[in-house]
């Protein structure tokens, strides 16, 4: 499989609200700091991490929803390579049909004064405004087709968003993202605002659409079980950096970074016979505007040594396709999701 998206040394800085006497920001917060990864065509890469780890900023910056302060983002398309970071704002608008986004809150992301048909067709009309030749019949056919693939009926297109439940609204948002037939879709917490019984509908829908339309996903979520369910590979972020990256199974079952280990141990298993042995992290997440020296995780890491406080580890390959940013990645024997759950009983629930 060839890479569709290549991100190299990407950083995003936000200015702090405090200003100096000259009106310049006093400091900057590095929300994303020197991050590199790639996603193959047809693949789903999961991006996990806690709030403030920079995962949403990273997702947005890949589409230039926020401007990167350094680094490069490239899309490899059949017609050639597109350097997303170098596009002018006009070129960017045209290029947006290659990459789209699905947001967390379907109550906030749909305009209440537009019908579903207008919402879904808007990206097509915007592209027509940029010179794409599309007539009304083509737009209509395209909207009906994508709406049906997303589980919406033809008569529902006449209605307004308020008539729909959370799960159906998310279907509308997905249809809007897919109407331009994009290559890459960034899904930012697409299920976390939904009820449990509806989450499964949306996860399965995303998987079906990926297969039928050949989509590539960057799937941002904090629900580790949902990520395991849909992702081929996973990147774990902590304070703006990727600390571990690899195939889902390896990252979950044989983690190489102590933060991943702690994260895996913290997920409560829906099984009363699985005894959880959580690794309770010391303290809270440090202030991202003033990250700890050396390894950013060392203040909460139970394996940290003096070296960790002074030298920052780099992300390096420690097993087949598995990368970790830890000085001791090859020496430590960390516990994976399965070791951290002791089963008193091997019967499988349900």
């Amino acid at each position: 499989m060839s890479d569709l998206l290549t991100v190299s040394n990407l950083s995003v800085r936000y200015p702090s609200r405090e200003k100096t006497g000259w009106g310049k920001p006093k400091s900057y917060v590095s929300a994303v700091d020197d991050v590199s990864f790639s996603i193959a065509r047809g693949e789903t890469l999961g991006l996990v991490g806690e709030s403030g780890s920079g995962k949403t900023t990273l997702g947005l910056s890949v589409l230039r929803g926020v401007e990167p302060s350094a680094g490069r983002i490239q899309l490899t398309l059949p017609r050639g390579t597109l350097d997303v970071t170098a596009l002018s704002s006009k070129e960017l608008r045209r290029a947006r049909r290659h990459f789209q986004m699905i947001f967390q809150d379907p109550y906030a992301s749909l305009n209440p004064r537009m019908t579903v048909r207008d919402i879904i067709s808007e990206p097509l009309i915007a592209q027509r405004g940029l010179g794409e030749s599309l007539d009304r019949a083509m737009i209509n056919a395209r909207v009906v087709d994508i709406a049906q693939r997303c589980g919406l009926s033809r008569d529902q297109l006449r209605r307004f968003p308020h008539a729909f439940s959370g799960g159906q609204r998310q279907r509308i948002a997905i249809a809007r993202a897919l109407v331009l037939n994009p290559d890459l879709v960034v899904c930012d917490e697409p299920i976390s605002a939904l009820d449990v019984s509806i989450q499964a509908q949306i996860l399965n829908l995303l998987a079906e659409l990926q297969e039928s339309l050949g989509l590539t996903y960057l799937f941002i979520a904090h629900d580790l079980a949902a990520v395991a369910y849909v992702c081929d590979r996973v990147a774990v972020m902590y304070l703006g950096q990727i600390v571990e990256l690899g195939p889902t199974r390896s990252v979950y079952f044989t983690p190489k970074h102590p933060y991943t280990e702690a994260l895996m141990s913290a997920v409560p298993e829906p099984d009363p016979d699985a005894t959880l042995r959580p690794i309770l992290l010391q303290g809270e997440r440090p202030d991202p505007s003033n990250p700890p020296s050396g390894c950013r995780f060392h203040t909460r890491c139970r394996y940290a040594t003096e070296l960790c406080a002074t030298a920052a580890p780099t992300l390096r390959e420690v097993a087949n396709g598995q990368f970790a940013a830890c000085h001791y990645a090859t020496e430590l024997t960390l516990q994976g999701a399965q070791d951290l759950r002791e089963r008193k009983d091997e019967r499988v629930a349900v």
Partner: protein
Amino acid sequence: MAEARDNVLDVETLSIALRQDDATVPIVEDISFSLARGEVLALVGESGSGKSLTALSLMQLLSKELAITKGRILLHAADGGVTDIVGLGANGRAIEAIRGRRMGMIFQEPMSSFSPIHTIGAQIAEVAMIHEKVTREEARRRAAELLAKVGIPDPVRALDRYPQEFSGGMRQRAMIARALICGPGLLIADEPTTALDVTIQSQILDLMRKLKNELGMAILFITHDLGIVAQMADRVAIMYSGRIVESGPVRDIFRRPVHPYTRALLEAVPRLGDIDRHRKIRPIAGSIPNIFDVPQGCRFHPRCPAAQLPRCAEAPPPRYDAGRHHVSCIHGAEELGR
């Protein structure tokens, strides 16, 4: 209903309705459950199931448009006295003497449940000063002791800080301290970790478990997260559209669920172990009914794979019991008997 257990709380056929113009819309119907000393009962449901309203009604904290229309909420004191919360009304000395003293409550969003203009210490000490008429110094001393117990570093200095200086996890710890300062027999926890990160969530759950064992209080834990239920609860009650559809010991509910909704819910949740097992999650078709337009009969029948029409659409399903496992479903008799 009166079991030979050391119960802290008995809720009997409680109904809550929304008053709208001259009509009343039932929101919670005929729910019954009990909690024994030191027990954790999880009230599980999706949004709109009525689980949070049930929790609020226990403290008479329902907003004006909502009212308890039926049932009893019996709170048992250690000396054997019984109080019916429903009879106390929403205002007055009688209910105020119970709120915060014999029942503590913690909420999902700790920022909105603390006042930003008073210090953490003042807001925790206040509870003891009102209920137990202790001096300010004594109340502060006890507040500091509790902050230490919930794991806040440097508790004496923390007393003089403001809620916004605390992180989300710290605020949730402070809220637990405030709920526990009078040593209530019952703690109501309404989605206490939903706004927190997983690593912080596991710290808070661990803390709640420790405090429960140490202080012996009962916890009513309201959540939609089946993982938390499995790890925290002794017993579970599953709510759907204002009714309890199934309840029982946690192992029975997870191992031998009977109600089609409970079964469907368990099959809809992905698990970490799924990577290897190639288990497919199965969504529940359709969506949760609108409270103003609920289906007749069994509320779950339009989404139920095992529904028998017209039977399920005509009358509410009968309730079946097997020991402490209860289910309201027409299939209850044969399924529970197995």
